[in-house]
Structures are given as C-alpha cells and as structure tokens.
C-alpha cells in the first residue's frame, strides 16, 4: 500500500470517526432478518427510508440487520444508544427483555418494541392488527377454493399466529361450511427452502389456497409452479406474483407510525404508549386484489375492508365457540383485546391441535 493511500486512509478514518451529521435526532433500527427478505424486515426498512425522506437533514438513521435475539441484541442496542441514538425501534418479539434492560441503562433514549407486551417509562410497544387482513384473506379463500382445502404455513405457535389462523378460518367457513384448514408448523419466520417444501406438501395434499405467516416469496413460487393455486402476499405486497397466484396481500405499513413517533421525539411530546393499529389507521394495508378474483368476491372483500377500517365490523364477532366446544363469544359480542393478545386456542371447526 502506498504511503499516500495510507495517509488518506488515516485521515479518512479520523474523519469518519469524528464527523457527525448535524441532525437533530438520531433514530436506530434493530432488525432480526435481512432487509432483502422481501417481507417483515424489508417493510420495517421501508418505514425507515420513509422517515429519512420525510425529515431530510433533521433526522439521521442507523440500522443493523440479522441481529440474533438475546445477548447480541442487547449489545447492539447499547452500542446504538452509546452512539447517540435518541429513538430505537426493535423489530422482533424476542427483543423484549433486551429492550427493557437497555432502556433502564439509558433513561433518556426512547425505545419502541414491536409485537411485545412489556413497557416502561421510555419503552413503547406497537403492533399491527394483522388478523383484520386475515379475515379478508379467509373470505376470498373460502369463496375461491374448489377443493375446499386451505393450506396454512404457520411459523411459531404464538398468539399472533394463532389469531391469524382463527380469523382466516372463521371467515372462510362463513362463506364455505365445507372448508378444511391444513396447517404446517415450520418453526421459522424466514426460510425459503423450508417454506417451499411446506407449500409443496400442502399443495400435494390437495390445497388450492396457501396462506402463510412466514416471510419469503417461496410459497408463491411453489404455487405458481403448481398452477391453479392462489396465495396471498405476506408482510409485503409480493406483487411480482400477481395476478396469479398472489391474489391479494397483507402489507405492513410502518411508515406512518415511524414518522409520527419520530416527530414526537423532535417535538418533545414522546410518551410511552401501546399501539395496536389495523386497517383503519393505515398500519395494515390490503394489497391490490387481482383480476383472478371474481368481481363479486372482490367487491365483498373491499366492503369488508372498509367496514373493518371504519370500525363497523370486528373480525372476531360471535357466535363463536372454542375448539373444545366451550362458549367464547355470544351472538353479536366482539372479542376484547386482552383475549386476542393471549390467544392460545383454536376456534371450533379446526381439526388440528395447537402444538405444545
């Protein structure tokens, strides 16, 4: 290496170390997966980019991807805080305890934890009512299936996933009493090969609709190869597979929330809150329903979306019984958030059992 380039390197290194963009607020993002996953983390990063675009020079963002949950997460958050971050978004349930721990050490830094339930003075929680989107998916699935078999690629048996299964099932069954749900648990949020295998197995077993709670486009590709199988985009639009097999999608749109919270930090009005928004406030987006869906089904789905959005319809409205036959919701009664948050039971009609 020539001396000149070494010198340049040294100077640049010093420069990098000391140069601080004169931003008012620094926002950090901790991602559990790669931003190229085309699903969960991809959408969070879109939210981050939206924040950058909205605020321009006033806000600087930093991020780290593929951060494992546990001790590594705690270290990454601590390093971000030590770097001067004022607001940190931790985008996975498994970051819950690390977030609380680091928040204790840095009382002046604000933390936003996705999908968790522990808060403190400087920790907020936020999540999206994905089950609202699942209701619409279930409706379309029930109407469009010819084999009456719906395949579901489920990730982990946590309340959020079980909620989604229940919501989709209830609405599929409403329009199609013969519907059957086949569920495969893959124990991962993102593993294209496993998801492809699971999709193929479900299709081989006769499913002509595949729903997924995993983040890659592999099930869409498998469905496309099989032909005549419909799927829905998960977490992001996955529009490159439209109009078939992807007939619609659930889109996580974090941008409005992220911008609002960053604004709150800028204004000094930030407080610890718990946010659980759905289609109405724009956190859950329903992707464009493709032309493969019959016009009347599309109209019904859009109507359901609007009804959920303006609050006139709640996806968990009775009469609904639990899988073991016991009563849950009476006719017209809607579920309270608490039960939904801790949901660990299937509704009546689903034949499989929740894994222990």
């Amino acid at each position, binding site marked *: 290496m020539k001396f000149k380039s070494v010198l340049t390197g040294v100077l640049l290194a010093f420069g990098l170390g000391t140069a601080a963009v004169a931003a008012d607020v620094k926002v950090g993002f901790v991602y559990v997966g790669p931003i190229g996953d085309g699903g969960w983390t991809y959408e969070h990063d879109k939210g981050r980019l939206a924040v950058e675009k909205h605020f321009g020079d006033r806000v600087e963002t930093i991020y780290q991807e593929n951060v494992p949950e546990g001790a590594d997460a705690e270290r990454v958050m601590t390093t971000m805080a*030590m770097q001067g971050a004022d607001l940190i978004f931790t985008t996975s349930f498994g970051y819950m*305890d690390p977030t609380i721990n680091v928040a204790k050490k840095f009382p002046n830094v604000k933390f936003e934890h996705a999908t968790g339930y522990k808060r403190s003075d400087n920790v907020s929680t936020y999540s999206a009512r994905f089950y609202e989107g699942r209701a619409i998916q279930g409706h379309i699935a029930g109407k469009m299936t010819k084999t009456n078999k719906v395949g579901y690629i489920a990730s982990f048996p946590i309340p959020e996933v079980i909620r989604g299964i229940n919501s989709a099932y209830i609405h599929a069954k409403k329009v199609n009493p013969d519907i059957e749900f086949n569920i495969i648990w893959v124990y991962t949020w993102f593993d294209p090969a496993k998801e492809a295998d699971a999709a193929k197995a479900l299709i081989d077993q006769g499913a002509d609709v595949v729903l997924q709670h995993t983040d890659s486009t592999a099930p869409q590709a498998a469905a496309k190869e099989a032909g005549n199988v419909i799927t829905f985009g998960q977490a992001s639009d996955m529009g490159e597979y439209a109009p078939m097999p992807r007939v619609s999608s659930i889109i996580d749109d974090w941008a409005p929330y992220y911008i609002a919270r960053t604004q709150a930090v800028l204004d000094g009005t930030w407080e610890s809150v718990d946010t659980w928004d759905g289609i109405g406030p724009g956190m859950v987006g329903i992707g464009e329903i493709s032309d493969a869906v019959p016009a009347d089904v599309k109209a019904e789905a859009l109507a359901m979306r609007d009804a959920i959005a303006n609050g006139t319809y709640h996806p968990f409205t009775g009469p609904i019984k639990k899988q073991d036959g016991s009563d849950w919701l009476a006719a017209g009664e809607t579920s309270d958030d608490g039960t939904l948050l801790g949901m660990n039971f299937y509704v009546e009609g689903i034949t499989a059992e929740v894994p222990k």
Partner: protein
Amino acid sequence: MFGLLLGDFSSAFSAIKLIFWDPLFDENFASYARPQLLVKAGPIILIAIGLSIGFKAGIWNIGAEGQYILGAIFGAAVALSLYPQESVFIFPAMILAGALGGFIWALIPALLKVYFKTNEILVSLMLVYVAENILASVSQGLLRNPEGMGFPGSRNFQDYPSAHNSEIIANSGMHWGVITAFLAVILVYFLFLKHQKGYEIRISGEAPKAAYFAGINPSKTIIFCMGMSGLLAGMAGLFEVAGPAGQITISFNSGYGFTAIIVAFLGRLNPLGIMLAGLLMALTYIGGEIAQLMLGLPGASIQLLQGMLLFFLLATDIFTNYRFKSRDS
C-alpha cells in the same frame, strides 16, 4: 483483497480499525466493548477447551452445539422447577445439571462408537438437530413461562436472583461462565502437560497402535474425551442461558458449538492458544458489529473476514510443519 471488495483502501483501513482497534481502545465504547469481549469469548473458549481434549485423540465431537443446548435445558429445568424459592444451592445445582445434560448428550455418540463403531462425527452432528427440536418443544411446553401471555420462552433468569448468572464485578463482563472458562484453560493445560491422562490422550491420537499396546483402553479414552467435551459444552450453555441470554427460547443458541471448533484449531489445540484465539474471534464479532453500525458494512463481510483470517493463520501451518520435520531429520 478485503479492501478491494469494499471498493477502496481507505474504507478498508477504517473498517479494520473499527473491528480490531476501537473495541479495545476507542474512548467512546471501549469501556463497554472490552467486557463484552469476555462475554462473547467465555462460552466459546470453554467449549473449545473441551473439544481440544477429544480432537487431540482424533475423536471428533462436532455436536458441541447440541450438548450446549441440552446443558442449558437441564440447568434451566432445575432452576424453574424450584422457582420461586431462593437458596444459595440453586445455582451450583444448575451448574451440575448443565454439566450432566451436556455429558449425557455427548455420551450417545461415545457409546455408539464404543459398542457399534458408529462414526461420532455423524451421530453428534445429527444430535444437534435433534437437540434444536427438543429446545423448540420445551420452549413452548415444559419450560414455558406461565406468565408469558402464551408466547414461547421460559422465565427470564434476570428476575430470579438465585438462578441468575450475573457479573461478579458489575460491568466487567465476568460472569461465572467466563471464570469457569479461565479455570478450564488452566486445568487442561496442566492435564496435558503433567498428568498421565493427558499423555494417554495425546498418544491415542498420534500413534493409536502404540497406545493400544501400551495398554491404554481406547473405549475409556473415547468416553472420557467425548464426555468431558460434552460436560464443558453443557456448562457453557447453562452459563449463557442463565446469564447473557436470559431465558430459554426457541433459538437462543447462536452457533457457539461450531465457532468453538474453529477456535480450537486456531489455538492449535493448546489451552493457552485457544484462550487467545477465542478472544481474537470475539474481537472480530464485537468489532464487526460496530463496523456494521458505523459503516453500514453488511454482516456477511464479517463472516468473510473471519474465514480469511482463519485461512491466513492456517497457511502459516506450513512453517510449523516444516520446522517439526527439520528437527527430526
């Protein structure tokens, strides 16, 4: 070459500086990063020490990751079954349970090798996947936190003082796992240097037929080596789950069992070498994180760096080999 990948020499230089120099000396975060080195290196060194015992004898325990997981599960099970009682005996019991868990899991490939001559590489590796499935099962069933809103994962040990593997000195990163790792380094150093057993193990590896004729029982050697490495790996798992990781979750294991194999070789299967190699490896992890954050370096580049570092150090093997030969001839 690393620099070319990044595009120019100056960013290569700043990246190298961030990875290797800053965690140790930079005024902004060295005081935090230095203890983190111990936290990261502790379990890896502990496992690697155990592995080196077997590797020296030609016994390839590739399943340390599985033994790590089982140790954590056993230890956590003991603690959680006693919750919420507080007692000074709980933590030692957890350590014993952790050691036992790892020992049992390593005993499976050991016994299969002794009695059926099955290859221990394959069995121990397959058992890693089995262990991961067991972990997933207990995270959601047996060991799940009853107050956890239905989410998988055990209670957090930070809320259970008797069971918590906390730092001996605050903010020093030295928890019991780190202390045990250093003790293991010293103990194994003397084992190999002075003790009969160490001699037997080395001979079993270097000249198996000679060992046989000398009356060294190969079965006992296999069981000892696999058992010890499993035991240490299990303890490492316990210390990690009761300390830095905090709880049993579906994927709390982060590949230390495999990193330890590399560290064992980097350290030339020598306890002191392993200690240094483990600290170096930890430095690349910690420094790599900082580089990712500050430079936006992709995470994959750190793995690449570690691989190339390993290649570089291995390439210098040629000098040790030739030196050895010239002394003989």
